[in-house]
């Protein structure tokens, strides 16, 4: 078998029959559908189809031969590729198109159609060879791919928008907060700052972002305490909260700042960035100080006339005529009681205001704890005729703390014990050493405190409900005690059962004593 020219076979003369059958077999073995149409007959009918064409279309040979191949398109006649096909064919060129065809049972398949014209010596197209491949699966995959791509594209756009919105949202939060925020990279270079920072420190973005923190504004941020925080504290102690820094800035003056620093530990782009939040507490602290000053002055001024009144009441008792009636004596006694109450209220008010602003300073010094207890108990004992205070337990020795504050605690616990155990005769004060703590318990056999109320009695202004009407006071005594013990590094708590009495105990760490001895 040999080729001569385009599309023409040259048969060996001896075995035409055999060669033809071989060729037909070859065509039938092809997995591509192959047809030949006769262009010289009207409507270019199919004159040959191979086996693969039958399998591909579902039609059998007798349903194919004689038809124009457009029957495969059924009603789907408006496919644009037909234009291209027609143009190529009329120009006598071969053509490749992908066209939608329909099998005999109506199912769609994508036909990759290759049409090649066969011309005679005179250049007239006599036949067409059509080679078809069912590319439905590829086409489907392509379409799916396309759909997938569109979907992803849409998602990406959506996500980007969402991200942008969320970024804008975060940004607006960051810009709105009335606290200065700085983001630093690991080398303490400023990546960004918020509006409040710019306003507070009277700088602009350009002279801030991208600069080293310590070099900002001619080194006005080169603050030893801040360096310490960022370079020493933060690496081992992340995050750092409420780090107080005071600094005199050249233009804006002295600022008291509360710093919160947080190093990003997440792996990735943001790792090791440092978020620094700066709260300017200069004004707040000044106001607190003014308030404390005011309260100090007010309490001083209130106590002054009170001193006189108290003295005169004592004089009244001293000069009480023998002829005075019991009623008159009681009136004087009551006056004394209420002056005492007024005096306590004034002291308490000042205490609680100081604690609230965290300005209750401890004046620590070494003192004899047992002697302090003895003296305090003596003081209370001399004023209480109803109860006997019994001191038990071990010697506690010297303690390094604020004696006057601790006297206040013991006083408060003892007078509470007496006040709330009206029908008993003794109150016990028990001293012990437990591990590296000293422990003091004040035990009464009085009315006790219900479980619910035990938690609340250390709150400010809380008073056990049924007590409120019977016993006067502002209800801040235990709150103050609790704060004093906490300031010393100890704890104050109560064990109590309703109707059986209460046991108020506190511990104080002795470590302080060892360190300061």
């Amino acid at each position, binding site marked *: 078998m040999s080729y001569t020219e385009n599309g023409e076979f040259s048969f060996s003369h001896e075995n035409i029959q055999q060669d033809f059958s071989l060729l037909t077999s070859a065509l039938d073995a092809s997995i591509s559908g192959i047809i030949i149409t006769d262009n010289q007959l009207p409507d270019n009918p199919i004159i040959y189809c191979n086996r693969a064409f039958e399998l591909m279309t579902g039609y059998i040979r007798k349903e194919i031969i004689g038809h124009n191949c457009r029957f495969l398109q059924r009603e789907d006649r408006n496919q644009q590729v037909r234009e291209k096909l027609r143009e190529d064919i009329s120009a006598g060129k071969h053509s490749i198109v992908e066209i939608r065809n329909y099998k005999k049972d109506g199912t769609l398949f994508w036909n990759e159609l290759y049409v090649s014209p066969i011309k005679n010596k005179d250049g007239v197209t006599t036949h067409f060879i059509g080679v078809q491949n069912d590319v439905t699966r590829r086409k489907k995959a392509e379409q799916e791919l396309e759909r997938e791509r569109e979907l992803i594209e849409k998602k990406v756009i959506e996500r980007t928008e969402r991200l942008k919105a969320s970024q804008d949202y975060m940004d607006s939060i960051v810009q709105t907060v009335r606290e200065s925020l700085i983001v630093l990279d690991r080398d303490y270079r400023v990546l960004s700052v918020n509006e409040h920072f710019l306003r507070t420190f009277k700088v602009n973005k350009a002279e801030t972002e991208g600069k080293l923190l310590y070099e900002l504004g001619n080194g006005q941020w080169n603050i030893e305490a801040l360096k310490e925080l960022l370079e020493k504290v933060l690496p081992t102690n992340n995050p750092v909260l409420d780090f107080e820094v005071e600094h005199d800035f050249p233009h804006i003056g002295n600022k008291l700042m509360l710093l919160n620093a947080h190093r990003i530990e997440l792996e990735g782009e943001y790792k090791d960035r440092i978020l620094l939040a700066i709260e300017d507490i200069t004004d707040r602290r000044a106001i607190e100080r003014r308030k404390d000053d005011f309260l100090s002055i007010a309490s001083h001024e209130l106590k002054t006339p009170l*001193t006189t009144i108290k003295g005169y009441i004592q004089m009244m008792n001293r000069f009480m005529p023998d002829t005075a009636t019991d009623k008159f004596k009681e009136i004087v006694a009551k006056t004394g009681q209420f002056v005492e109450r007024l005096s306590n209220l004034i002291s308490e008010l000042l205490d609680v205001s100081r604690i609230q602003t965290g300005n209750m300073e401890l004046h620590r010094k070494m003192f004899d704890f047992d002697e302090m207890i003895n003296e305090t108990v003596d003081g209370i004992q001399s004023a209480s005729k109803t109860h006997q205070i019994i001191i038990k337990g071990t010697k506690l020795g010297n303690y390094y703390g604020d004696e006057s504050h601790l006297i206040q605690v013991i006083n408060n616990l003892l007078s509470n014990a007496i006040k709330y155990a009206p029908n008993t005769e003794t109150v016990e004060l028990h001293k012990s050493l437990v591990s590296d703590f000293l422990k003091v318990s004040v035990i009464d056999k009085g009315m006790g405190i219900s479980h619910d109320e035990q938690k609340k009695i250390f709150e400010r202004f809380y008073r056990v409900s049924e007590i409120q009407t019977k016993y006067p006071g502002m209800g801040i005594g235990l709150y103050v005690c609790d704060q004093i013990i906490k300031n010393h590094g100890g704890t104050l708590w109560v064990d109590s059962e309703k109707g059986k009495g209460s046991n108020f105990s506190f511990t104080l760490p002795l470590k302080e004593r060892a360190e300061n001895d």
Partner: protein
Amino acid sequence: MTKKKVLICDDDKGILEMLELALEDENINIITEPNSLNLYKLIEEEKPDLLLLDLWMPVLSGDQILKNLRGHTNTRHLPVIVISASTDGEQIAKESGATDYVAKPFDVDVLYSKINRLMSA
């Protein structure tokens, strides 16, 4: 037994009057002075056995006076009890060299016994 002299300096006249009444007895002679500026002169003239001294007074405060007294030979050992309504009164009193301290409002009997103890010592 000669009468002991107690000088009281407080800018609040109510307290001075009350203390005069409360502390006076056959053994004690009370002198009161509301103006702290007159105090040095008064101490020189009267040579009191004890001084009761307020802290917060206009112009010249108690702790300033006290520090000054402690700096002079004649008054270095004069017993001084500081009386104050200030919350940090005790601290200030001790730092300024007070012999004793009594917080206002005080118990007159406590003050009286402290005065007597210091003067008999």
